[in-house]
């Protein structure tokens, strides 16, 4: 950490977005994480993504659990709503908030401990319910706050900083999200913002359960030889399946692409995910193929990154529950308490 606040001065030519804000307006307090923490890069990517999407900060709610990762919402979007929940319980609180006010943009930020250990059950259910949210796991494979024990996402055979070998199988949150029905699934790396920023943007625009597993090296406890989540290891084993451009509104394709290398997925809100394929034949709209690919690449010790799966026409919790369009927290007394005649009518319909 540093004792100084980040100076208010900004680059004289810093651009403004459509709302008239600079990128700096989307920042939060200065980070107290260790210097070089991958999580800080993810915070910077979230800031960049929200700035570029022209999102009004007061329409975003950021929720997190406990852990290094879950501290980060303090360090970005200082003008947004925030809720630091109980360990592993962020998905429930997010679900509740989303039910109460469907109009906010929900950003769940969690870590491998918070989501793959204590909160694994919560993680599973929020995915299968299809809550409209962006769920980011800042995955460093280690319990950083308690000095570097293996976490549930540490790969079997990887070594801790003091040399112990992990004997347990790793939980692959991407694989789980695939099985559990998430409709936008990506993996990325904190050290590659060019890839990460558009993936976050696509997830925010996605009107369903969007999950991004971001591998985020822990500089203090998991950036050594033998780690499979170090900067060097991830860079060496990173195999991107595609490169995403997020286009808010469909426009002409001006760049020339070789035939068959460009794939477009239109989302509900009219935004377009334009994918440049980097691996032959990878089709991110095919869930089964994507799951096969994941297993294959994992067997080859490759880390598949990019937009791994997307459903252009997702349904979410509100659609399943058939709730009204007006956010529930805006319903007035009259709507919530329609009177005894309405109750009698309802009771009659159930007889």
């Amino acid at each position: 950490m540093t004792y100084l606040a980040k100076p208010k001065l900004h680059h004289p030519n810093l651009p403004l977005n459509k709302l008239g804000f600079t990128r700096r307006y989307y920042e939060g307090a200065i980070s107290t994480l260790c210097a070089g923490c991958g999580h800080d890069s993810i915070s910077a990517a979230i800031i960049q993504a929200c700035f570029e999407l022209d999102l009004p900060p007061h329409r975003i709610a950021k929720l997190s659990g406990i852990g290094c990762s879950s501290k980060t919402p303090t360090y970005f979007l200082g003008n947004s709503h925030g809720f630091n929940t109980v360990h592993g319980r962020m998905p429930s609180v997010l679900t509740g908030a989303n039910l109460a006010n469907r109009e906010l943009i929900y950003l769940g930020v969690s870590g491998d401990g918070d989501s793959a250990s204590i909160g694994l059950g919560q993680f599973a259910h929020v995915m299968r319910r299809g809550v409209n949210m962006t769920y980011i796991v800042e995955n460093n494979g280690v319990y950083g706050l308690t000095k570097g024990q293996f976490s549930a996402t540490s790969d079997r055979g990887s070594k801790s900083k003091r040399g112990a070998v992990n004997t347990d199988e790793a939980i692959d949150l991407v694989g789980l999200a695939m099985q559990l029905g998430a409709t936008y699934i990506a993996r990325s790396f904190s050290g590659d913002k060019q890839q990460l920023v558009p993936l976050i943007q696509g997830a925010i625009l996605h009107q369903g359960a969007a999950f991004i597993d971001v591998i985020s090296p822990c500089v203090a406890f998991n950036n050594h030889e033998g780690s499979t989540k170090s900067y060097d290891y991830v860079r060496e084993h990173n195999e991107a399946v595609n490169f995403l451009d997020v286009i808010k509104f469909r426009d002409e394709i001006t760049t020339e692409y070789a035939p068959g290398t460009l794939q477009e997925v239109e989302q509900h809100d009219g935004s377009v995910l334009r994918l440049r394929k980097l691996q032959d034949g990878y089709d991110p709209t095919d869930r089964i193929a994507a799951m096969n690919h994941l297993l294959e690449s994992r067997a080859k010790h490759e880390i598949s990154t990019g937009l791994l799966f997307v459903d252009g026409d997702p349904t979410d919790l509100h659609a399943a529950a058939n709730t009204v369009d007006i956010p529930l927290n805006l319903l007035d007394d009259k709507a919530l308490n329609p009177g005894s005649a309405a109750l009698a009518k309802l009771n009659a319909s159930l007889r």
Partner: protein
Amino acid sequence: MKPTDIRQPNYFHKVVDCQWACPAHTPVPEYIRMIAAGRYGDAYMVNWQSNVFPGILGRTCDRPCEPACRRGRVEENNGDKPEPVAICRLKRVAGDLKEDIRERLPKPARQKNGKRIACIGAGPAALTVARDLLPLGYHIVIYDGDARAGGMIRTQIPRFRLPESVIDEEVGYVLNLGAEFRAGTRVDSMKSVLAENFDAIFVGTGAPRGRDLDVSGRKEAAANIHIGIDWLSSVSFGHVDKIGKRVIVLGGGNTAMDCCRSSRRLGGDDVKVIVRSGFDEMKASPWEKEDAQHEGIPIINFHVPKAFTHENGKLTGVTFEVVEAKYDDKGKRSLVSSGTPDVHVPCDDVLVAIGQENSFPWIERDAGIDFDKWGMPVVNKETMQTSLPKVFFGGDAAFGPKNIIWAVAHGHEAAISIDKFCQSEDVAVRPPPMMNLLSQKMGIHEWSYDNAITGDLRYKVPLKDVSIALKNIRVEVELGFDAKLGYKEAQRCLNCDVQTVFNTAQCIECDACVDICPMDCITFTADGEEVELRARLTAPALNLSQDLYVATGLKTGRIMAKDEDVCLHCGLCAERCPTGAWDMQKSLIHMTHAGSNRPRPQFEKMPEAAE
């Protein structure tokens, strides 16, 4: 792009914009930090070493450092009015608040080296030569037509800007090094000086002739038409102590500003500056124009003087043609008649301040010194040497009117040359500057400089009340910063000499520095040619006068490119770097002065303190 070689002293020197812009290369951030720490004497000595006249320059310098100051650039689009650090007035703080520093000055050389040098003129250039050479054991003879040393500093700068005591003090520091000052001895023949067999001669006679305005009525009304610099020196010596009620000052340079402000103090109630060019193109420094206007002096532009009007041999006014600026397709400006009728401005006195010229009637053209077709001596721009190897020029005498700080810079160069010449070394081989790079790290988040960036805007120097200031020409107008204001202004300095030094081998490319940098200076990207690279940095590097710091050899094959332009030197990149690949290191650049490549003779014996 080629990786940056930070071992070249000039690379980091250039990052210190103020020091790079200063002709004498004064280490500005170094002395500003000392002022902030209350070490006024140290701050003064750092200045004295570089520019010889800190107290004088702290009031009168043309401040090339301030337009160059990075603070002005970083404040752009960050507030109302971007302004540089008040470097010049901070220098004065060091002069005003210092303790007695006389013990710290060099002592007169104990051993003379047997070489005799003549300095003609006792202005800033010649005094600098004397200051640099006297401690080395040279015998310096300074000639000046006036009774006291200082040259134009004493004769042309009005006392309300520069008190005599400051001149006496700082000129004294030089003369006390053991110079032989031949006061009141005007040299009227170069040949006679040459005949005295000096080992070298330095000419620092300035640009002593004010340009005249030869239009109709000049002769008839001569009694009330004065040449600006001559009039200023008469005022300075007390020969003139009043002027008419209505005064017109012709000209738009700093001399014109001194003339009009002096007139206001000597009885001129209705003083006007009338200038040919537009207000913005005037040669005077913006702050000097401001000061004049502050004293109720209007500046009328686009008026070309046509004639002096007179009655019975007495000046009655000046007639002006009103012009406007026209620009041709090459952007060259010409002043053409606006078509409106001529304007007559009545007045009692006119001061002509339309430029200065060199004048060398005393140098015989067959003395061996080449002159060009404009009557200027041919002087080597680096060595200050003329075609007569033992004769050197400096200050306004060398290349026409500039200012004090340039004269000092010339003096240093000439002193190096004279020293080399007298030691039979090659004058053309110039000693390179020395640079020290020293880490400022004290702890994990602790640096030996204040790296917090203040948002304060430039502080104004308090002024004496106008009604008091205008009553007495010897009352100094500017009061100077006191310790408190000086501290606050000093904290605006960005410490540009504390450099961001990057060590590729330690970098793990975690992006922490990129994310934290408040000014978006740092980019890790694919290599490319400079022009193309500048365009695709995190913040495009549009200021081409500022370098890119490029490092290659990263594991991913990318390069690190840092745009130096608006770096705050806040050190956050280094604080957030997990491996210490970034470090904040102070680059102290020492310009080499005469004799600094060998031990000084007076130190060959034990220095005094040890006896």
